[in-house]
């Protein structure tokens, strides 16, 4: 059954129960269903072919949710995009999946640039689509048909569009609900962006369970998030490690009445056992679910049952229901407990593949298994501990940044001979981007000029927080940049201008 059909069932069961709260706006399940009907009626009038890709460039809002399900109601494929991304990146994704249409808020600042870069894409104003209300008429989609394409890497050269089927989304949503039972009595204050896999799964699990989602814009005002949790009698909260770090650094849970809080979930990168401990102390009434997953797995692959937090500190736990996890050596053989290898995953939540990229798909999908690129070992009870990641992706807060994408932007600058980017540790965000640049002889680039150039072309979190100038990049004999060496101070000798996040003068 599709998520839309499950939602329809929920609407019939509890039409007047609240589904979404956004500022002063409060939508019941019945209201949400009417909004989905409005979107699908408007979309149907465009006579888009079944399977048409439709971009969704919206902040978390009731309109986002109505459009997501509204696209499914007309047999379309949702392509959620990052509202902070600039036109070049957005056009790269829209063109890559040959999108027919893009849903944007009226007056979006990148619209003109987008129109020039992706002229084939029909632009639809979100407010108009969501206006009115209508009965939802839909044909149940083929389970194997694509439902959603989530771009995980923004390289302009080669975007990777994780293509998830209706079955993938439905199976993973139900796996999560099997270990994290939610009901119509639950209410979650959400700060996670819906356009990423984690936020996407939080959205579906809560709506399918009939819970209430309170949409908070972000962690910019941490105390406001706690206030919303208290005012709405929230029972749940989900975050990446930096969400919890910010909450504890700049807000005081003890100052708010959070007695109703019963579950916290964490995913999106390893959380230190120290931070996990502090979160448990700050929210003593809530169970903390440590989870692990990948966009390629719809979202979730493993979870640590909360009662195991002390015995299995540091573990990401065991496979979620319906998923098999194995740890393999480089020859594809399963390794013994205690031995590190790559996590392979199998289950009906594993993506169809990368959109229109059979080569990249073949590299990670084989014989029904997903090679995650994550290195881990098991203990004798089968609990999994992450040891590292083979991927070069920089994990900054909730974001994943491809170093190549930032390098491509910096390489456009006059005076740059060579550039490589890597992640460096950051107390709050996990990692931030560091750029290491070789200047052309006689060049006079400053760190600030590099950052400004990036800021004009990239969302803020992709702008390098540290910029170093060196004589040459460390490379292997075959010429490949050794990114891990970029973090070492040895290779940033001869820096002319280094700016660190902790220095106000040069962010």
């Amino acid at each position: 059954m599709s998520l839309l059909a499950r939602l329809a069932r929920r609407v019939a069961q509890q039409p007047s129960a609240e589904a979404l709260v956004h500022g002063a706006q409060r939508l019941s399940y019945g209201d949400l269903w009417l909004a989905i009907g409005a979107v699908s009626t408007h979309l149907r009038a465009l006579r888009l072919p079944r399977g048409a890709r439709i971009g969704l460039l919206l902040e978390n809002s009731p309109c986002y949710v109505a459009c997501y399900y509204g696209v499914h109601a007309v047999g379309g494929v949702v392509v959620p995009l990052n509202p902070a991304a600039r036109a070049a990146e957005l056009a790269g994704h829209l063109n890559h999946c040959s999108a027919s249409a893009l849903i944007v808020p009226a007056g979006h600042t990148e619209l003109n640039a987008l129109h020039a870069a992706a002229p084939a894409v029909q632009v639809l104003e979100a407010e108009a689509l969501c206006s009115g209300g209508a009965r939802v008429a839909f044909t149940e989609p083929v389970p194997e048909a694509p439902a959603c394409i989530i771009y995980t890497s923004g390289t302009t050269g080669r975007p990777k569009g994780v293509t998830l089927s209706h079955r993938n989304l439905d199976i993973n949503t139900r796996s999560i609900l099997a270990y994290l039972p939610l009901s119509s009595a639950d209410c979650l204050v959400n700060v996670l962006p819906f356009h990423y896999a984690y936020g996407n799964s939080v959205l579906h699990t809560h709506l399918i369970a009939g819970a209430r989602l309170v949409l908070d814009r972000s962690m910019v005002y941490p105390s406001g998030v706690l206030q919303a949790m208290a005012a709405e009698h929230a029972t749940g909260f989900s975050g990446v490690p930096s969400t919890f770090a910010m909450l504890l650094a700049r807000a005081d849970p003890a100052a708010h009445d959070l007695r109703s809080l019963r579950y916290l979930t964490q995913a999106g990168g390893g959380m230190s056992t120290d931070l996990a401990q502090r979160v448990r102390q700050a929210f003593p009434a809530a169970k903390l679910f440590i989870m692990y997953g990948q966009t390629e797995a719809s979202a979730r692959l493993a979870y640590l049952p909360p009662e195991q937090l002390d015995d299995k500190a540091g573990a990401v736990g065991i496979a979620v229901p319906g998923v098999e996890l194995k740890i393999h050596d480089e020859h594809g053989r399963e390794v013994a407990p205690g031995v590190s290898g790559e996590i392979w995953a199998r289950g009906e939540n594993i993506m169809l593949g990368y959109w229109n990229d059979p080569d990249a798909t073949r590299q990670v999908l084989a014989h029904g298994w997903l090679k995650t690129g994550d290195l881990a070992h098991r203990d004798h009870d089968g609990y999994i501990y992450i040891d590292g990641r083979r991927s070069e992706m920089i994990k900054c807060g909730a974001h994943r940044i491809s170093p190549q994408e930032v390098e491509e932007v910096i390489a456009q600058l006059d005076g740059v001979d060579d550039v490589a980017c890597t992640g460096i540790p950051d107390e709050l965000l996990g990692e931030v981007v560091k750029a290491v640049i070789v200047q052309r002889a006689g060049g006079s680039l400053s760190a600030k000029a590099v950052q400004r150039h990036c800021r004009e072309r990239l969302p803020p979190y992709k702008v390098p927080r540290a910029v170093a100038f060196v004589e040459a990049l460390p490379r292997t004999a075959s010429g490949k940049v050794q990114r891990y060496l970029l973090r070492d101070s040895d290779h940033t000798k001869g820096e002319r201008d280094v700016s660190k996040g902790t220095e106000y003068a040069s962010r």
Partner: protein
Amino acid sequence: MSVEPRIRQFLLNNYLFTDDDAALGNDDSLLQKGVVDSTGMMELIAFLEEQFAIRIADEEMVPDNLDSVNNIVAFLARKQPANDAQAGA
């Protein structure tokens, strides 16, 4: 330098990486315009606390106090009515 240009300079330098004064209006919403994100806000708070020798309480971190140059200037004036604008400079 008085309070307003110091705030502006900090925001322009550290979030927009520019000296172009026109890049930021005093009433522009820092959040809506994408000038600061959640970590940017943490840094802004640290900057204000250090430069103006004040302590910002968790519950004072609200848009009314911090979401634009004008809001910040007014907030600082409320926080340090007795001090002169050069405090902490």
